[in-house]
Each structure stands twice: as C-alpha cells, then as structure tokens.
C-alpha cells in the first residue's frame, strides 16, 4: 500500500492567502494543485512536505483568455481544458497535438498546466511547447508579480525559477498572426512520457521563414529550445533541404542520456526526425507558405 507520509493540509482561499501560508511555513510547505505529480512523489517519499496548501478553490488561477496580443493560460487550467480550448486551437494547434499525447483522458481531467510546469520533468511536453512558442511565465510572491521567459524558466531537471514562497500564476503566449505550429512525440506506450518530442511554431513572410521556434523535450536540450537551428532557418525558404539541415542542427544541440526509454543515439535520431516533421507540418500550416 502506498500512502503519503503524515502531512498537514490547508485550503487557500485566495492567491494572497496561499502566499501568506507559504511564507508562514517556508520550505516545509508545498502547493497542491492537481496532485498528479506531487502525490505520487509523496507516496514514494521523494517529496516530504510538512503541509500542503491546496489551491484548487482559486478560480482566479483558472481560465484561458486573450489579453491584448497574448493568450493567457491560468495555472489551474487542466490538461483537458487546454486540449479542448477553441482559443488555443485557433491560434496554436500545437497545444491540441501535444495534449492529445499527455498522459490519459482521466489524468488530464485533474493535472494542471501550472503543476506540470513547476514539476519541470525533463520530458514535460508543455515545456517543449512553451519553448517553441516563447511563452512568458508569471510568478507571484508577497512583493508582487514578476515575469520569466520560458527559455529562462528551468534551472535544471525538476528545478525552476519559482522559489519558496512563490506561485506560478499564469503563462502568457504572444499571438503570432498567420503562424503554423505542430507537435511530434514518440512514446513507448499510450500516455507515457516522451522518449523524445519536438514542437515547432513558424511564420512565413515573402516566401521565407520570418520567425522560427523549436522546442525539444526529453533529450536534454538547453531550456527545451534549439536556438542554432532557429537562427539558421530565419530568412531561408521552407525547403525540405533547409528543414533537414535545421533538424540535424537541433539534434546536435541535444545531449540525451541512455535509459530504459532507449539509447542516446536513438534519441538523437528521434530529435532530428521529429524536429523535421514538426517543422515541415508547421511550415505547411503557416499562412503565406
């Protein structure tokens, strides 16, 4: 039988209340969102918080909305809500493609965007999507709000810029009119973590790439991004040859480790192939292509 170790529990009534509880308890406290990463870690004693601050009542952290030229996803938005969001599908089909292969429908009902981002698993699909779209993470503490670009958010595996006493409240994505986006993933079985995954978001203007975002998951790409490959493609035509060259550059920038999901050279091959497929489909979907 797996049961978490003894722990105290309190429900926050607002973000301000949650922040004050976090301040009061310091690093003994953990935020409980969907619980689908934290509770399994607590069962395995990989996490041993003294007190859980449940933020499931905080409606201020829910909802997907457009704010000016940005799409804002609240921290407590579930994977199921991202999957079915018409706003996200209209602007960024990459979200639907990624969410369809995150865990399973029942887990997606409970798991949250903010929880996934803060868990910061090296194979987290939303991290690769966030890198491809160059999102901005909004973090709140007792002093107020600060923003961190997605490409500076991760300190390392399972480590982010969200410090003790802080809450990730939302992630903002700039709307790129006419963009095309796509996500590709290889997993061992339905709903598993990625062996490797790649996402792309591009705009095309005058027959050449005007902006390129490439996110790569599970293969130790720095900040889940492939910056050399992106820089190579900007200003170039979306030909198969250019995309193949960029995909190889992206794979070269990864440093996967061999594990039960496969050997390192196989994962590098996947990084190349999946980046190529994602870029090809994103380019085809971009207006002006």
């Amino acid at each position, binding site marked *: *039988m*797996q*049961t*978490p*170790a*003894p*722990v*105290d*529990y309190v429900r926050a009534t607002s973000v301000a209340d949650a922040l004050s509880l976090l301040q009061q308890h310091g690093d003994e406290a953990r935020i*409980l969102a969907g*619980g*689908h990463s934290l*509770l*399994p870690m*607590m*069962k395995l004693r990989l996490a041993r918080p003294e007190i*859980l601050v*449940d933020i*499931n009542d905080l409606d201020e952290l829910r909802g997907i909305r457009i704010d000016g030229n940005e799409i804002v996803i609240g921290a407590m938005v579930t994977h199921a809500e991202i999957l079915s969001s018409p706003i996200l599908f209209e602007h960024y089909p990459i979200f639907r493609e990624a969410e369809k292969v995150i*865990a*399973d*429908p*029942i*887990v997606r*009902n*409970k798991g949250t965007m903010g929880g996934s981002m803060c868990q910061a698993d090296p194979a987290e699909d939303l991290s690769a999507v966030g890198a491809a779209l160059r999102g901005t993470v909004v973090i709140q503490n007792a002093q107020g709000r600060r923003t961190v670009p997605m490409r500076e958010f991760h300190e390392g595996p399972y480590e982010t810029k969200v410090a003790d006493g802080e809450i990730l409240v939302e992630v903002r994505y700039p709307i790129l009119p006419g963009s095309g986006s796509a996500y590709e993933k290889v997993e061992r079985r*339905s*709903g598993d973590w990625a062996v490797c995954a790649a996402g792309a978001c591009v705009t095309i203007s005058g027959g050449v790439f005007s902006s390129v975002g490439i996110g790569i998951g599970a293969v130790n790409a720095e900040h889940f991004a492939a910056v050399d490959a992106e820089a190579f493609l900007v200003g170039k035509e979306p030909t198969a040859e250019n995309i193949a060259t960029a995909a190889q550059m992206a794979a070269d920038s990864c440093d996967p480790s061999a594990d039960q999901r496969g050997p390192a050279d196989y994962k590098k091959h996947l990084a190349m192939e999946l980046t190529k497929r994602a870029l090809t489909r994103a380019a085809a979907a971009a207006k002006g292509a």
Partner: protein
Amino acid sequence: MRLQRLREPDVEITIKINGAEVTHDVEPRTLLVHFVRENAGLRGTHWGCDTSNCGACVLWVDGTPTKSCTMLAASAAGHDITTVEGLEKDGKLDPIQQGFIECHGLQCGFCTPGMLMTGRWILDNNPQPSEAEIREGISGQLCRCTGYKNIVDSIHWAAAHPAENEVSA
C-alpha cells in the same frame, strides 16, 4: 482498515457521495479511494495500482472522472462524488451496466467499476462514439482479461440502448 494515526490531528471532512453526505475524521493524508472504501464503506470503487496508471479507482468528482488514488479525501470535502454504486437508479441498472452484461464486458471484474464510470462519461459527452473514440476514452484504464474488445462492444451497446430519460444522439 483504519489508517494509523502517527502525528497530525485528524480532520473532520464531509463529502457528498451518491447524493448522501458522509462525515468522518480522517488523517489529511488519506486518499479519496480509501475514504470511499473504508470510511464510507462503498467497496465498488476498486483500489488497484496506486500510481494513477490502472484506472480501477475511477469515480466522478463533480461529474468528472478522476483517479481517486491520486486525490486526497480532504481535497474532495465539499464536492459531489459519484461512485459505481450511484449508477443504478431506482433499482434499474444504467445502460452502461446492462451493456457489460449483454456483451460480456468483464471476466475477473477488477477494472469494471472504473470502466463503467468512464464509459458512462464518454456517452454523456458523445452519445454515439466511434470505436476509436471509445478506445481513446478508456486509454487510461487497464484490463488484463478482455483485450478490451468486449469493453468497447459493451459501451457501444449502451450507446445503442439509451435509457428512456436519456437524450439519444
């Protein structure tokens, strides 16, 4: 089985399960699946892998299927839970239950409560699902007996035989 109290004081929580309020003192670390089975005495919800993989523990929280091994009972306080015991209405089985009987949708029966809860939810959102949609819908749940064929058939049977008060597609 009662969880051993080690340190923190118990908390009193009230959860509405199948329309009836159930109040108990439990440790904050108590998982919802154990509250439902041990405190509320409803053994229909099964406790399987304990790692949110197998789906034997699926029940509804406010109408949404949830893996109850990965939710604290304390988090469910104040919410409406529906378990497999809540599917039958006035002594009449829900079509999803009848479907599993008609199509032999189980052998050992361990996965069945979770499959029934997810199957009902699939049909509530999509009264005439395709085979692919059903298979995607139950992809978070494991059955080691049937090879899923008869489970898919059972859900299809229920889609074809809606209850009289149910709006068919």
